[in-house]
């Protein structure tokens, strides 16, 4: 049986992106050295958050399922980096860091930024009353109108209609918000994916549909969810008459480039787009699935297993970004060897592999969560209905 593995794209593989011969049209060309430094820092932060949760979970301190974002951090960081605070997002289960990384450019600890604080997000993960959703639904199912984050459900692709509605309302009110929706490649098979992407296309709504193609929809490989003859999930965009961009999901600069191309287009009134970010899933679907995933993935890749693992480690988003910085002369080869978190599993790294301020920042979140009380039991039956009218 032939085994399908989507090839790792280079940035040249993008379709309908800016002309490479005119680099000044590429959003990434406007990034400064400081921006790139910040992007690397944010990649470390997203990785550290995930690693920390994996360890806390293994110690039995967390309830529920952890859907690791390990190896997919470039999608989260690169997608969010260029957004305005007033833009909306709808992250899904594997995008947990997105909740506190939204509008992070306004300052990690800036209380006025339009995103959740790391304290709030940790409180949610720990199931505490200080979570934005008071820990009523689990993990990534939090949202806030003020923070402009749509609270998702477990029904994948199910927030794309709401994303279209949110920006429709915003536009009527004179706003210029764009909404980024995050989706796995598996959810593109859902009817609601089509129904919502179609509506957003018809009405030229500023919705950017990001497809995180990590090669696996739980236990189903891309081979079994992408029709032969369609090279990419982004290729579905043609059917809606909208652009479909493909980004290297391991390369934060390429993700930034493609997402911002789509965002700029959306904001200027030209309508929606699909951006497929091609990536790898480092672990199981959720941590309950890690052991089986190690087996089924190995069986699936067969003789290619060692090669796949080596490629995944080589193409760790932190490693890719470090190579960019060295290539640009913004980091020496010696500096790139410091804080070697890249290419390692969660259990292979420790705090010393990460920047100090990243560890400190996350500790503030964890300490807040641990010290927070759980919600009182009687809240379980509250807020079924709003009282007192609209």
């Amino acid at each position: 049986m032939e085994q399908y593995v989507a090839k790792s794209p280079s940035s040249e593989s993008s379709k309908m992106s800016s002309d490479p011969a005119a680099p000044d049209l590429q959003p990434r060309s406007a990034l400064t050295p400081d921006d790139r430094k910040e992007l690397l820092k944010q990649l470390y932060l997203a990785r550290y958050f995930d690693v920390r949760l994996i360890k806390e979970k293994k110690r039995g301190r967390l309830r529920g399922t952890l859907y690791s974002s390990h190896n997919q951090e470039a999608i989260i960081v690169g997608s969010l980096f260029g957004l305005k605070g007033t833009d909306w997002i709808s992250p899904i289960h594997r995008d947990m860091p997105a909740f506190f990384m939204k509008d992070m450019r306004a300052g990690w600890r800036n209380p006025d930024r339009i995103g959740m604080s790391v304290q709030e997000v940790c409180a949610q993960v720990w199931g505490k009353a200080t979570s934005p959703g008071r820990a009523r639904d689990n993990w990534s199912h939090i949202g806030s109108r003020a923070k402009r984050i749509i609270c998702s459900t477990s029904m994948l692709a199910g927030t794309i209609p709401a994303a279209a509605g949110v920006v429709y309302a915003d536009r009527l009110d004179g706003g210029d918000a764009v909404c980024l929706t995050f989706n796995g490649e598996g959810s593109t098979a859902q009817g609601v994916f089509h129904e919502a992407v179609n509506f957003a296309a018809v009405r030229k709504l500023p919705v950017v549909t990001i497809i995180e193609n990590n090669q696996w929809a739980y236990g189903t490989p891309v081979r079994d969810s992408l029709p032969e003859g369609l090279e990419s999930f982004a290729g579905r965009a043609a059917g809606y008459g909208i652009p479909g961009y493909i980004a290297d999901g391991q390369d934060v600069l390429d993700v930034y480039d493609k997402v911002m191309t789509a965002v700029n287009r959306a904001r200027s009134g030209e309508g929606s787009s699909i951006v497929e970010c091609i990536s790898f899933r480092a672990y199981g679907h959720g941590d309950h699935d890690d052991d089986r995933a190690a087996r089924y993935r190995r069986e699936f890749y067969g003789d290619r297993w060692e090669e796949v693992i080596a490629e995944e480690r080589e193409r760790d988003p932190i490693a890719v970004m470090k190579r960019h910085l060295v290539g640009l002369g913004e980091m020496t080869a010696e500096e790139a060897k410091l804080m070697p978190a890249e290419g390692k599993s969660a259990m292979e790294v420790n705090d010393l592999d990460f920047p100090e301020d990243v560890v400190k920042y996350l500790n503030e979140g964890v300490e807040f969560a641990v010290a927070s009380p759980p919600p009182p039991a009687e809240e379980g039956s509250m807020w079924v209905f709003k009282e007192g009218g609209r």
Partner: protein
Amino acid sequence: MSAAPAPLVDGAKKNYLLALREAIFEEMESNPNMLCLGEDIGILGGAFGVTDGLQLRYGRDRVIDMPISEAAIVGVGCGMALNGKTVMAEMQFIDFISCGFDQIVNMTATFHYRTAGDVNINMVIRGPAGGYGGGALYHSQMNEAWFCHSPGLKVVCPSTPKDAKGLMKSALRDGNPVIFYEIKELYRRRDLEEFVPEGEDALIPLGKARIAREGESITIVTYGQNVHHCLEAAKKLDAEGFSAEVIDLRSLVPLDEETILESLKKTSRLLVVNEAPMTCGFAGEVLARMSQNAFELLDAPPARITRMDTPVPWVKPLELHVLPSVDDILQAALRICRY
């Protein structure tokens, strides 16, 4: 091209459909934050004409002809509502609501709960419902039980023009998602036409039942189209020497148990009627609650008359065979009265 809108308030008697239309026009007029979405609601004015002239008056941005996708109608409406809008979402037939089911019960119904009160969805999902008209399997359903069983949704079903208007206006101001069952067989019934109040005077609160007819011998609890069947049966009961009190629930969620209990104190006998199938239907819910809360008031075993546990078939003899008839109601009431 849509016809020019009929005068909104002309003081004439209104049928059920025009009363609904007037409610939507009035709310659109007084609430600039309100949007309407649905299939064919704009240019056509809705399959039945409930939104006739609405787009002409309020424009394409506020009255949105949607692609054929109930999931998008509900889900997009949910997104608009979460961003501060009041939303009227039309299901062309309430049967089609199943295509938007996940967006209703998982996304919309739970938003307030999931966000610990941060977000509330002020949205009415309305559509023509009910049998007795030859609509066959997919244009005759009463599927209210699905939504009564989904926490976070209110469920409403008026049986008169006044109630249709008053409940629609209240639903559009309720702050919660409301599934609104319009009985299409009542839309244009001449004998129900009545004077319908205007503006704030028209409001009828959700969760308050209406005593459609006073009586002493038996309490018949029902809603929607069956209200009229029960009233007819009640007339026939009179001839048998029993006077029936007919309670029109109007709202299923929230349920006005108080009005039923008060009636049972007087009659001590209970019959519940609905045209949805029996198993896990709303009639069963009323029976269960009254068995639990009013057992000592009852002098006879309570009963329910419902559709058989079948789909609604097409041709008339088949359809009438499975749906509750006036005679079914009469016979059941007599059994209870004579117990």
